[in-house]
């Protein structure tokens, strides 16, 4: 893009800055669209899982529902409650959005499709998302509402507790790839499933499990959605928010779901790597990447309708007493594993393939078991049980 701008008569620095601004606006639009669509996707999948329709009126299959919601929220009156800390109340949404949108700088959309492949990529990723904690705390504190205060405190305690296991478990992929840049981590994996980071060693599997549980909690997803547990805290830290300020929290939450899927995919699940023969088809790489992200997001939404919510003390002890020691073991184990097998890479490959086969076996067993239990529990239409009225 720089070259095009230079050719129409701009000097290199202006061209660079112009292209950066254009790219960032494009990424913002993509980000908002993805966040909006994900709210719709979540509602549709929830509907599907609960045997109801979900939103399907606005546009084909309800595809424009998120636009309608956004417009409605812009037109809503923006109330600031009595006695609230007005400055903090207004600033809080910005922190949440900047914290999530900032990750887009190092977000690898595919092979070579990355805004800026910073050499501290993964570290930057973890640190910029910490801004969300500030937004949540500010929103909770400034609302002058007891639900908000408790929700904000819980959210902050939960996010910081789970940041430790997540940070520790991400050390394992860094050990394996030897770089912090997102592009580098993606390039250190292959397109075949047993070349993915998650199957590279037994300890990578452990760190993947810890990372996935931890990032579910960091994104406030069920079973860790205590900050917004409706039955206890109304709607947590955003109880008092209305209008577009509320929409910003909403947007950053669902965009966070996408960021979660993206980080999982690019660090552990091979990112947008393609077979050698297809090298260079950037669009295909992006599509592969987005397909993997979609699968991860579907699993996250699926978990929401499968698992009951944790209690706060269980949540804290899970983080500090199980995940953190597990992350220590994964890190030291991986370092030892690398030392032991450094002259025999063939052993590593064999173990990777074996683990992949075990994974496929478990997946097939799970699928069969679920199918059997669905068939057993299915109630025939028009049977007495389905006509309770």
């Amino acid at each position, binding site marked *: 893009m720089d070259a095009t701008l230079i050719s129409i008569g701009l000097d290199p620095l202006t061209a*660079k800055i112009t292209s*950066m601004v254009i790219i*960032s606006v494009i990424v*913002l639009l993509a980000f908002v669209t993805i966040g909006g669509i994900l709210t719709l996707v979540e509602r549709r999948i929830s509907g599907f899982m609960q045997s109801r329709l979900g939103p399907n009126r606005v546009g084909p299959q309800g595809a424009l529902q998120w636009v309608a919601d956004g417009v409605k929220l*812009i*037109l*809503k*009156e*923006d*109330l*600031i*409650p*009595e*006695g609230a800390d007005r400055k903090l109340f207004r600033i809080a949404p910005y922190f949440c*959005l*900047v914290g999530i*949108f*900032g990750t887009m*700088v190092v977000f690898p959309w595919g092979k070579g499709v990355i*805004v*800026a*492949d*910073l050499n501290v990529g993964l570290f930057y990723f973890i640190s*910029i998302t910490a801004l969300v904690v500030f937004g949540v705390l500010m929103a909770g504190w400034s*609302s*002058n*509402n*007891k639900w908000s*205060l*408790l929700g904000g*405190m819980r959210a*902050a*305690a939960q996010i*910081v*507790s789970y*940041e*430790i296991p997540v940070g520790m478990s991400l*050390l394992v992929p*860094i*050990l*394996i*790839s*030897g770089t*912090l840049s997102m592009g580098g981590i993606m390039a250190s994996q292959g397109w075949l499933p047993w070349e993915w980071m998650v199957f590279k060693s037994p300890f990578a599997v452990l760190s993947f499990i810890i990372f996935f549980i931890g990032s579910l909690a960091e994104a406030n997803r069920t079973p860790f959605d205590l900050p917004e547990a409706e039955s206890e805290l*109304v709607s947590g830290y955003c109880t*008092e928010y209305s*209008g577009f*300020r509320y929409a*910003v929290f909403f947007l950053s939450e669902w965009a966070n779901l996408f960021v979660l899927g993206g980080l999982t995919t690019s660090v552990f699940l091979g990112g947008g790597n393609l077979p050698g023969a297809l090298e260079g088809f950037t669009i295909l790489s992006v599509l592969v990447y987005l397909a993997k992200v979609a699968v991860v997001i579907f699993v996250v939404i699926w978990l929401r309708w499968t698992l009951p919510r944790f209690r706060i*003390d269980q949540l*804290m*002890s899970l983080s*500090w007493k199980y995940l*953190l020691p597990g992350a220590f073991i994964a*890190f*030291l184990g991986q*370092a030892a594993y*690398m*030392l032991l097998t*450094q002259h025999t890479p063939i052993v590593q490959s064999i173990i990777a393939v074996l683990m992949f086969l075990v994974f496929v076996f478990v997946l097939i067993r799970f699928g069969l078991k679920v199918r059997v239990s669905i068939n057993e529990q299915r109630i025939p239409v028009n049977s007495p049980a389905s006509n309770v009225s």
Partner: protein
Amino acid sequence: MLIDFANVFLFAAIAVGFVALILTVGKLIRPDNPNPIKRSVYECGEIPIGPGFAQFNMRFYLIAFVFVIFDVEIAFMYPVTVIFRDLMQAGWGLLAFTEITIFILILLVGFIYAWTQGGLDWVKTLSNES
């Protein structure tokens, strides 16, 4: 390469600008007639009792404290993790591994201390004096 880091500030500015823009546009078209009942704080439909800036639990402070210690330690672990592979290829692998282990052991002492002192328990029982 350094200009790549300008992207970070640019993205932050764009995000702030986006929210500010929509809120400003919204300000022109949305209704604005607050009244005391509308502006009152939500407390399940009751008239709120006292301000919302209530006292909250000490536990949050403890959690924050343990968090700060561990987060700093993790920040120290990242650099050595990045170069571990290079060290291993240069033949320094065992030394690096030993040093990392010592570092983690020191960390673990603090962790075990916090654990045994009940710093990680959410539900605290008062010490039974009877």
